[in-house]
């Protein structure tokens, strides 16, 4: 007899995959055709189960949409309220499961397996929903889309309620423009605590020493000043002239700094 069993369930709409590893090595019989060496091997099951028709799924979504607390409970792995009442509809019929188990795995205590499956599904109701065709993603998306519809419909109908209406997008744009109210005080407090308030960042030591470029040709101005000053034809030339003179003055200054050293 299979004493201990670890069961791993995976759910897709209409398809329950079960994999398990028999832990008491000798008792499990390997699948046909596989090696017989006393090592435990994985057993797999693929069970087809019925899904809810679209209308039913819609109905259930509606119901959950009206009970956010139940949705939250579901996310935590609990069945409450209306969801709890879905049992047994929520779970795949036992005879179907049994049939599937028996046909795919021989010499296995089907009852035990069934029980394990049922237990796990009860513990993870979201798996059950997925099997029925409503994955977690479907649930969430369905509920939220519904809420969005309702909210927007309500906003259209009545004059916008004071605080909660107003689109998210508009609010985000406003916030983005306003900028985060970060207190620079936080940065300062951190630096004071570290003792680094006056110190340049770590990169500084590498970049501090930078020699003045020797005889660097001064680029011509890349901007179009002529366009800005149409009545002053020599504008561009003027900028270039200034740039050159400034460069000369800067070079002279750089020289005079280097000298005393």
């Amino acid at each position, binding site marked *: 007899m299979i004493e201990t069993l670890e069961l791993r369930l995976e759910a897709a709409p209409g398809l329950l995959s079960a994999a398990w590893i028999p832990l008491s090595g000798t008792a499990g019989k390997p699948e046909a055709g596989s090696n017989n060496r006393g090592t435990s091997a994985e057993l797999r099951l693929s069970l087809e189960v019925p899904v809810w028709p679209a209308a039913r799924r819609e109905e259930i979504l509606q119901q959950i949409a*009206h*009970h*956010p*607390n139940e949705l*939250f*409970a579901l*996310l935590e792995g609990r069945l409450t309220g209306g969801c709890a009442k879905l049992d047994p509809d929520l779970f795949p019929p036992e005879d179907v499961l049994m049939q599937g188990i028996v046909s795919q795995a021989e010499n296995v205590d089907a009852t035990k397996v069934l029980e394990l499956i049922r237990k796990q599904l009860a513990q993870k109701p979201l798996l059950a929903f997925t099997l029925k065709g409503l994955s977690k993603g479907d649930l969430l998306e369905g509920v939220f889309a519904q*809420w*969005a519809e*309702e*909210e927007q419909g309500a906003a259209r109908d009545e004059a916008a309620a004071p*605080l*909660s*209406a*107003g689109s*998210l997008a508009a609010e*985000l744009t406003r916030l983005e423009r306003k*900028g*985060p*109210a*970060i207190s*620079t*005080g936080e*940065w*300062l*407090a951190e*630096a004071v605590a570290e003792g680094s*308030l*006056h*110190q*340049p*960042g770590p990169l*500084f030591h590498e*970049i*501090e020493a930078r020699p*003045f*470029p020797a005889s*660097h040709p*001064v*680029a*011509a*101005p890349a*901007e179009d000043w002529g366009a800005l*000053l149409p*009545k*002053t034809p*020599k*504008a561009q030339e*003027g900028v270039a*002239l*200034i*740039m050159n*003179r*400034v*460069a000369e*003055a*800067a*070079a002279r*200054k750089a020289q005079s*700094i280097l000298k005393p050293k």
Partner: protein
Amino acid sequence: MTKHLYSIWLGDVLFCFSGETSEPKVDAWTRVIKRLELLGGVRPFAGATLRLAEVKYPIAPAADKPARRTFPGRTMEGLALLPKDAFELLLAYDEQLCLKQGVEPGGELRYWAAAARFALELMGTGGIVPGALPPRTVGPRRRGGEQAAVACWSPVFRSPEERDYFLQLAASMPVLALGTHTAEAGDLSSREEAGAYVLYSFLQAVMTTEIKKVVAGIEGELAPYKANYRRGYSPLTELWWNSLLTGSRDVPVQGTPAEVTELLASVNETAGSEVPRSKVEEVRSGQLGLGLRLEPPQGEEETWRLTFWAESKEEGEFWLSAGSIWSSKEREFTLWGKVYRNIQQQLLTALGRAAKLSPDIGRALAVPAPEGVDLAPEHLYNFLKESVQLLTSKGITVQMPSRWSREGRRRIGMKMKMQPPAGTTDGPAPVALGMEELISFRMEASLGDVSISAEELNALVEAGVPFVRFRGEWIEVDPKEIRQVLKYMKRHESGEMTAADWMRLEAEDGEDRLWKGMSVTGMETSGLLASLMRGDVLRNLPSRSVPEDLQGTLRPYQERGYQWLAALSGLGFGVCLADDMGLGKTVQVITCLLDRSLNAPPEELRRPVLILCPTSLLGNWQRELQRFAPSLHVHIHHGGRRVRGESFMELAESHDIVLTTYHLAGRDSEDLAGVQWSTVVLDEAQYIKNHRTKQAQSVMKLSAPHRIAMTGTPVENRLGELWSIFHFLNPGYLGTYHSFRQRYVSGEGGERLRELHRLVSPFLLRRLKSDPDISKDLPEKLELKSYCPLTETQASLYQGVVDEMLGVIGESSGMARRGLVLSSLTKLKQICNHPQLFRKEEGRTQRNEQSGKMEVMFEVLDSIAELGESALIFTQYVAMGELLVSRLARRYGVTPLFLHGGIPKRERDEMVHDYQEGKGPAFFVLSLKAGGVGLNLTRANHVIHYDRWWNPAVENQATDRAFRIGQDRNVQVHKLICQGTLEERIDELIERKKSLSEQVVGSGETWLTEMSNHELKELIELQGQDWM
């Protein structure tokens, strides 16, 4: 004691400070830093101005206060370097040199030095581009709605390598530099971004000032490139362009707001340069939490509402309503560089968790898209008592109405209403209202600013919860506060306090205004005190006419000043006249004293007035008193032969005015304290700023019902001085020195300083030469004569020469006589200038001799230096010029330029050029006949004639060099005259015959040599020296 040197870029200046807050320490630091010499002998701080700035800088926390998490700005006093001086500093910066001079620089100086070198590099490689900026709003907006833009030069990074360097440098910026308004004006999403903004601002400022210098040097060359701008026809860009190509002066780019906006946009678009940003990093994901808001019922309703919000858990706070989250079709959003995913799920999960703690929230989750839940009053109570604590302990914020509504929490406190003194409800204003006068007032309980009765208060207490319905609205209150007020009200309905206390309380005006532990929610002041605080006290008092005995005419603003002085000090308040130098504080005070001598009640008249001043100004006061109020009898208490003891008291009481110095206030404090004065006047009151000196303490001990302080310094910014002066004027008004410092100096600036301003402004009158009201009454050329005393040595030398000359003059004639007269007169002038001049001639020198005139000159120059202004000093003698140069260098740490006939033209031109550029020294010594015409020295707005030429025309020409068209500041001409000597008499002569001066005085000194012996004797005799 090592002095730290810290720097922070404030957007327009590099603010250097010590990290100290105690005023004596700051003073000591300032003296050392001003003399700091760096590479190449550069003394970058010599001309720096003292400035107060709000800096986010940690001060060691007091033992009883917990360390702060946020950093308020602190007011620090330090030296502000303009971009050009900052550039010089940073290029000449050397850490070792600083350490050798006892200065320990902060790590940020190396950083800024590297930034400065980078600026130089950019300039050297063409990394510059023209730009335009809106001007910093300094004063009030110009009339007519016109605005001005400023032409500037911005850095541009023409290679990726340069760009990367900029970003690396920005990322390495020390955090200290980020705590400024400049940083906060930019993008604060990360330290790197903030650093980039600050660094860019620095580079822009430094480069603009340097490039402007270069442009000034090639202005001629640039003339053909200028635009043909015609006001009213040409676009503003052309004016901007011309401004860019002008370096020798500022050309404001003025236009209508629309034009200016367009200019800024088009220029900056063409330039295409902006602060570089690092590539967007991998976007981080953000978390949302639950926020709850408690909203009181509207109108007649009873039901409260608890609304749901998504609160950000990241740096940078925001709240989004649950409704907006549910109604969005998006499942995620990005804000401030973070991506928030599965937003609906996050909110739902947070709500679900909260529902476990609060059944009310649980109720809300029974409907789709839950946005909130109603709370009936009984539920509200439970929610407040049970749920709030649990929720907040799990990190869910619960906002009470006071947090988010404009109303805030209403404070229960007292409203105070001043009662007029008994029996004078309708009568004329009270005659006296000193600081210690008791004011009675009625008190009422109030909620915010609405009065509330005791019964209503009781009802509030009984509710037991912080929210109550009151007169139709829901408000949040503190039951403890209510109980406290009820208790107090039971026993008191009215109270009394001194006028000083009342004014202090009124000035506070903040959340924390407390009296006897209770919040003071409103104060109603009436009568004289109210107009005093408003500043229009003159309106409510009968106006006084200027005393007829006054020998002279007051300018309109002087008359107003006199009235103010007389009115307030007549009421018994100590007052401070703080007008700018040159506006005539002395004459205003003299008028007030004269008025009092004529109109005061008889008991007061018997008591003399005491005037204290620095030694160098004694002569000046004597002159002025004599000139304007000759009817007042003045006794001068000074000199080795001054009267002491009983005789002093008799002398004092038999004169109207006793004039003495601060120095003697310290030495002869017993004598002075023994007299009952009617008024004490302190001239240059900042001399008592250090309240611990013997002088200051003696002054504080003087008793007098009327007190006047005079000072030309901007005393509002020098807090230590302010306290001392007000402690003298109205003792106790600003509290003890210790409490004053705690409250206003080491505190958080801003609000506190405004409070201080409210406290002192009723008693402080300060006008500036630049006030439009004042400047229209001022002549363009303000002539100020300063009378200088001779030192004992000078007096005896002088007398010696006089005796010698008069002894032999009778026996000489013709050429010999001429020679004797001229040489004697020259010797006398030299002695007046400085004994060293005379001794050098004679072949003997003694070091460290004083000259009365030089001391007075230093007083004048100190004020000029403090204002950051510039002066030309003229003298006839090259030797005097040299002496001036050496003494000035010693005192101010910078060697002034010296121009005299022996300087070759090229060097002269360079000097003038350097001076005009504002390079180096603020003082320029010139020989009176140096150069010739064509010197442009418009930078100076002060001219000092150290000694006088015989011919005023030559003097005026010297003045005119500074006073020229194109200069928009008034010029002050200071003439230094030694009292009792020939200088004084020649001055009188010139004044008397001003219009004929050219004929009488002639060019040169011939008119002197043609005087008779008798006339000469009268001219040169040493007079009026008995008190010296």
